């Protein structure tokens, strides 16, 4: 039996815990499959212990685990490790990977897409051999896991180069917002998949696995760290913001049209009496925007990112994904002294669903966020990419030391 790893909160009523760290692990170019197998066993043993409150240097003195869960992903380069026993799965083929930033910084994330790397990004750390998604109820729990991981890897450094088989190459942290909004002030994650549909979208089935039956029961993680230009966003009047998003800013009600003055009109009756937000119980009929003929609304973000709202999510052509994003906020030296944005994390049976959403005309193809294609529109450069990658998340198998162990063990 093979099942999805922990850390994918797709079941009914499950919401991702408050804190995230995505850790990207680089394999020593000299390391072979056996060494990587040993290292992954140690890493996953450590993390399982932490999930039980066990800190290696504090034997017999457990700490609160705060619901720590971890998920192990394999990037395309993992299968280039000498002695790897499995070829790179089709789900991580070149068609299903993001492009690299230019050596001088910037550059398109995808040809045909509207997202680009930030001008100061010259290296994408989300292309390393492995990624670990750490989630927990407290920042301490995920931070402790990162530090304990570092200690483990540091302790494994050997040889002249003093490098371990696996080294931390990048860390991106994030958190859930209790207001269910994003940094641009609007509700986010409202139009996600219904829980009943999620596993069919996420889980790699026999028909999806193609020549890689060992991936059945697993999933694919697509990550993109998207910084938002708040300075630009807050220059826009509220009505323009709403037309770009496709929702009322205060209530989250989907827009159904524009009035005679071209101002956005939210869905009548939303939110229902006794509520103030679309996210509150009773507003379920308003989570997804209904059909419209309004050409401006058709270009809004919520519609472009889900163009076939009535299609069956299971079908790859529906391009539905299960989003499990985490916001981020980090101090930086340059004005205004911080950077904020979204860690987009999507789970789906193939990265193709996300990559096509980002490139297809009518969807988000050529569009940075919403509105008309092109960089000169009001949201033309709202988002920039700090890092992005696609990872296979192998299934959990009974008796296996870690998910995907058949690739190295």
């Amino acid at each position: 039996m093979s099942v999805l790893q922990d850390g994918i909160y797709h079941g009914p009523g499950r919401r991702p815990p408050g804190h995230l760290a995505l850790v990207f692990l680089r394999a020593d170019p000299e390391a072979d499959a056996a060494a990587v197998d040993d290292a992954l066993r140690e890493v996953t043993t450590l993390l399982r212990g932490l999930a039980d409150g066990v800190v290696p240097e504090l034997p017999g003195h457990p700490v609160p685990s705060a619901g720590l869960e971890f998920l192990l992903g394999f990037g395309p380069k993992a299968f280039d490790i000498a002695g790897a026993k499995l070829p790179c799965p089709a789900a991580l083929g070149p068609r299903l990977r993001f492009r690299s930033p230019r050596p001088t910084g910037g550059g398109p994330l995808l040809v045909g897409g509207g997202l680009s790397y930030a001008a100061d990004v010259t290296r994408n750390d989300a292309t390393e051999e492995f990624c670990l998604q750490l989630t927990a109820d407290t920042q301490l729990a995920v931070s402790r896991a990162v530090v304990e991981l570092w200690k483990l890897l540091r302790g494994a450094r050997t040889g002249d180069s003093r490098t371990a088989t696996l080294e931390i190459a990048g860390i991106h942290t994030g958190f859930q917002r209790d207001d269910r909004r994003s940094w641009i002030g609007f509700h986010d994650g409202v139009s996600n998949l219904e829980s009943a549909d999620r596993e069919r979208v996420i889980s790699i089935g026999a028909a999806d696995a193609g020549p890689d039956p060992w991936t059945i029961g697993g999933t694919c993680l697509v990550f993109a760290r998207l910084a938002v230009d708040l300075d630009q966003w807050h220059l826009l009047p509220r009505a323009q913001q709403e037309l770009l998003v496709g929702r009322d800013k205060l209530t989250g009600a989907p827009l159904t049209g524009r009035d005679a003055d071209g101002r956005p009109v939210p869905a009548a009756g939303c939110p229902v009496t006794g509520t103030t937000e679309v996210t509150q119980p009773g507003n379920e009929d308003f989570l997804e925007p209904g059909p419209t003929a309004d050409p401006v609304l058709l270009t809004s973000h919520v519609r472009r990112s889900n163009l076939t709202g009535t299609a069956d999510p299971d079908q790859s052509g529906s391009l539905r994904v299960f989003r499990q994003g985490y916001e981020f906020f980090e101090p930086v030296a340059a004005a205004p002294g911080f950077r904020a944005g979204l860690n987009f994390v999507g789970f789906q049976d193939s990265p193709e669903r996300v990559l096509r959403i980002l490139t297809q005309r009518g969807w988000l193809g050529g569009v940075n966020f919403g509105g008309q294609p092109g960089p000169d529109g009001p949201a033309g450069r709202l988002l920039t990419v700090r890092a992005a990658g696609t990872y296979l998340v192998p299934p959990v198998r009974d008796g296996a030391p870690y998910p995907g162990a058949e690739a190295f063990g």
Partner: protein
Amino acid sequence: MPFSAPGLADDLTPDLLDHWNKEIDRQFRRLEPELGSQYFTLEPDGPTVDRVAVTWFGNPAEPEFCFDAATACTLSDWGVRGRRALHNEYCEYAVISATDTEGRIRPKRVQVTTELPEYYLMLAEHAPARLREILTGTLGTEPRWQELYGPAVADPQLLAPTQRRVAFARHLTGHGQHTDLIDADVPAEPAGSLNAVNALFMAHPINGLDDLIYIVMFGAKPYARRNSAGGFEPAGRDQIFRQQPGLEALSCRHADPAAALAAADAAFHGRTVSFADPLGMYIQQFTSEVFLFEGGPVPDPWIRLGRGQQGLTQRLEFGPADDDPHFLDEITVVEGDAEEPLTGGYEVVRQVQVGPIVALGAPRPVPPRDFVVLADSPGPVRCRDARVCTDTVGPLKEAFEAEALRPAAPGSRPRGGR
């Protein structure tokens, strides 16, 4: 309501327009006894309707879910054999080849069509001269009558209208499951080559007007299931397509679930569903940005949308014209981090979104007695188990592999040449 010519592509006489509307009405009346619903009408109700595009991707879904994307590409690009077996998403294509300066036959451009065969049948029956005029505009040269009506027909005006319809069907459309044509011994596969070498209009039996009306009518009911609170919620794809044996296979394609579920969603909210004028299948979007030529965008003249006014086009020609020295395989398709030469049509129609435009009436409460409550599905439909995989796609794959293994006859041309 009288529908205009598909795509508003042609100025038709009132008489021809009447024939077209009679054909639409005839198909509707034939389906009405089984599928009629107060939530489907041929008459959109007044000024409150929303014209909404229903879209899906144009590449054949079946070979991909039966096997994989690479197989789907190979088989779908297998000339007219691939087209007749697999191009059933209301989108067909042909690859035009030409000889380069070194004598090699290479793909020159891809023709994509969503035009309904019944429209051409109507013209062939009632207006041969107009038909030939339209096809001349598409082809750039005037076709001979024999290319349209078969080698025995030097002048279609000498035939009765019904004889013209049968002759044209036998030569260029096939019977398309129309009973009068089946009764007249018209084969499923047309004998003539004009619409095989070129993609003039669709000819796959499932890409017809009757099928389009069928699937939207089929979907336009407030299909529901009971939720845990005893209320109604929209039924899912698996429930809707498991109502009758044989429908299950349709649920795995791009077209049928997209069309039916869009109609069902509207009906669930009390909206009437109809086809917006003009009734037709349209190329809604083409993501040309993923194709590069010499590192930049493909030249605009290489992307030619036609057979319809803006937003209502039914034809796409993609690639250099005959008098251009370049070839299709000089275009690169860029997906993700991969860049490959473009050699066929499958990679083109993967970037094409097609579909009709429907007119939705205003939402209104659905009386509980109107809900069509469906039984829970015993589980998701397993597309890979569909009979089409064993009955159609599998044998086609075997035939392709057998041909690939067969030694080429001396002097034979590569596949797909003309």
